[in-house]
């Protein structure tokens, strides 16, 4: 009888060990190996303001006249982006001048893969640096890519995404 119990216990321990091993494997995969590049543009503006946003110096222009129910935005940008694989950051220039009536979110897309997605960029602010999405550096290697900035506009009161968005083709230089 005791031998039978001992055998049952061994089987139970084996099964529990197996379950533990599977759980640990799934956790390790989820933390380190899962593809995190499936970034869909949010339908509502992210709650968090972009941490790299800085006020545009001397930008105190009056708001653009916005057609009722529509939108009016102003964009300042350069068409060159430099990605540093070691820093996991991108150097670029994109501004949402004070004249704009909408918040903005910037995505950098290379070959249909979202490399960067900013937080909310409010009117009167710009970014010169953005962080790559987790693991995005693995998809890139040193060289030059043709990419695009996907600019999404959000209503400042409701946070709702506008029906109009903007795409800006850019040249992306990737360095070590």
């Amino acid at each position, binding site marked *: 009888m005791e031998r039978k119990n001992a055998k049952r216990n061994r089987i139970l321990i084996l099964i529990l060990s197996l379950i533990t091993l599977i759980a640990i494997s799934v956790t390790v995969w989820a933390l380190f190996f899962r593809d995190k590049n499936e970034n869909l543009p949010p339908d509502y503006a992210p709650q968090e303001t972009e941490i790299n946003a800085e006020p545009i110096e001397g930008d105190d222009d009056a708001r*653009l*006249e*916005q*057609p*009722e*129910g*529509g*939108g*009016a*935005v*102003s*964009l*300042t*940008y*350069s*068409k060159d982006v430099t990605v540093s694989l070691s820093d996991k950051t991108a150097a670029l220039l994109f501004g949402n*001048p004070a*004249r704009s009536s909408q918040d903005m979110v910037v995505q950098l897309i290379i070959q249909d893969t979202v490399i960067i997605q900013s937080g909310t960029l409010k009117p009167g602010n710009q970014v010169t640096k953005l962080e790559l999405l987790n693991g995005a550096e693995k998809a890139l290697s040193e060289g030059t890519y043709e990419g695009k900035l996907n600019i999404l506009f959000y209503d400042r009161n409701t946070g709702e995404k*506008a*029906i*109009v*968005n*903007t*795409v*800006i*083709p850019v040249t992306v230089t990737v360095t070590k």
Partner: protein
Amino acid sequence: MKKLTALFLAAMLVMAMSTTAFAAGSGNIGTTGGSQPIDVSARYTGGTSTPAVYSVDLAWEDMSFTYTAAGTRTWSPDTHSYTDDTTASWSEGKTITVTNHSNTAVSAGFTYAADTAFTAAAGSFTASTISLASAENTAVASAPNGFTTFSLSGTLPDTQTASGKIGTITVTLS
């Protein structure tokens, strides 16, 4: 010794003699005045860069449209089908305006992508591309600008009785 002294004195005399110096050019400066033109030369070495600064304004009207269907669909018991006597139309188009404040020319391209459930409603623009000249030498208020009008055609499902998003307009700035 006499010879040496003579040679020395001769040398002193030669060194003490005045020499008339002629300046370059054809001027004539005398002891009492005159003029002497001096050529000034210069050359330009390119070293100033003028990077392109892109600054574009976009404004769009309320992109809400109404699809109106009117008329009668009459049931025919003989053919077990409807005789369609209806007409349908979309509300008028809406405008998107692009203004260029860049120091380089900018082109704006317009595309419409319908959401999956609304592909029967097609979107079109009066101009699918607008080319705008550089804003150099223009006043801010009269910056180069252009517009396109977006309209819908086709049909909308009769289940869409409340206003909602049916597609997205993308403006490509290049």
